[in-house]
């Protein structure tokens, strides 16, 4: 199946695998070694964002946007370093970087919407993997800004329900990613037939 989907969806698949491995790693650190997993996200967020930029670069498919996306990755890495050095050290969750990553992803999602609208290539958007992928990004990361913003604002005693909702939406987003890969698989198979 993996070989029969478009390149952008292959990268979505890679992202899912990387995320899954990261989550396994954090569980292992917490459960088996009893080490705080916060530090892992200081590395994971830039890696995750880099994969997202590759996916968006493939979908947006404009040369000038490739440069902007590379610049955004560098910017996020620098922000992460500065954040770790001066604001949120390695043992604290890097929510500042997460918020900025979420803002970037929401913007990229909006740009991809514009590109989709410009192209008028798709017959039925509801059957397109790119639409579901992009919608889930917009939905989850817009909510993510709220969650981590709230977390930063109300740091001492944040409402626990927001983490549960966030985890639920995160799971929903990954399921939607899988659904978008499946839709693309169907589309490609249709085209080949």
């Amino acid at each position, binding site marked *: 199946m993996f070989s029969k989907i478009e390149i952008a969806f292959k990268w979505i698949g890679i992202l899912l695998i990387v995320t899954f491995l990261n989550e396994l790693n954090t569980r292992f650190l917490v459960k088996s070694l009893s080490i705080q997993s916060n530090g892992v996200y200081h590395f994971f967020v830039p890696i995750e964002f880099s994969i997202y930029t590759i996916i968006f670069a493939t979908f947006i498919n404009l040369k000038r946007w490739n440069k902007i996306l590379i610049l955004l990755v560098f910017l996020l890495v620098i922000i992460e370093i500065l954040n770790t050095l001066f604001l949120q050290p390695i043992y604290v969750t890097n929510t500042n970087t997460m918020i900025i990553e979420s803002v970037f992803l929401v913007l990229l999602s909006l740009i991809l919407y514009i590109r989709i609208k410009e192209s008028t290539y*798709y017959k039925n958007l509801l059957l397109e993997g790119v639409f579901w992928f992009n919608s889930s990004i917009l939905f989850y990361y817009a909510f993510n800004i709220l969650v981590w913003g709230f977390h930063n604002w109300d740091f001492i*005693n944040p409402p626990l329900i927001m983490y549960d909702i966030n985890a639920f939406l995160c799971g929903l987003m990954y399921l939607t990613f899988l659904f978008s890969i499946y839709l693309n698989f169907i589309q490609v198979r249709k085209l080949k037939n």
Partner: protein
Amino acid sequence: MTNRQIESIDVIVFIVAGILVILLMFGFILYFLISYKSKKRDYNLLEIQKKELDDQKKLLENTLSELRATQSQLIHSEKMASLGQLTAGIAHEIQNPLNFVNNFSDVSKELLTEMREDIKKNNIEDALELASDVVNNLDKIYFHGKKAESIVKGMLQHSRAAKGLLEKADINLLCDESIRLAYHGMKSKFMDFNVEITTIFAQNIPKIYIIPQDIGRVILNILSNAFYATIQKSKKISSDYKPNVTIKTLYDSSGVNVYIRDNGCGIPQEIKDKIFQPFFTTKISGQGTGLGLSICYDIINSHGGRISFESKEREFTEFNIFLPNKSNLVVKIPNNVV
């Protein structure tokens, strides 16, 4: 406020903000879906219109190619018509020398019979006299035979396709030939045709570089039109009308002017700007293709010259052909002439 109260307020604030964000995102996605669908509908409509336009374009291209084929057929017909006119003129031209050849052959035969009798009777002096008469006759036969040959050559020149070969040619001679050809051509069509032809040829005209068969065609065409105009007028007005066509040549350092004037029916004001247009004709269906003057215009233009006219309805028409005297002239033959 207790910590519990603060916490519950935080939860409410978060839930309200969360719902707002979710609604906002849903709203945006819904709006996007609707606007995309509407744009797609417009785009599909445009695609359909584009397809229709493409179909119409193809149809027009087919029509155009058909029109081009018809045009070339018409040009061919025009050429054939002009050739027919020429043939009629040439047939008459060739008839005279042939009559001479036949008559002198008959006379020579009789003279030779007489000469044989005289030789038998040993009447040498009479025989010698008859022999010199026969020689004179043979000279005349040769002369008229040559004349017929030159007419045939001229005909071949007219009928072959123009290849853009420039030659030094005598315009006066060309006009003279064209007058005779046009006259006899018209005479063969209209038996009661009669016209007074006046020629005023400038004697100082040098031979100029032209394609003689093309310029000959132009002069012939305009002369035929002039004759036709006089016929049309004589049909309309009383018997005291005297048809006249004048052909005049003039030379100055820049080139040669040929004026062809008739006192025929003239050209109405409203069609003056159309007469050089292809397929424009005032003749009844079947008598003209409407390409004659258009081809003339192209030929004269290709020689770097000008063709113009003056006309007054019911009084006269005068065409002026100007041909430049250029030794380095490069003639671009228009497509419809070949």
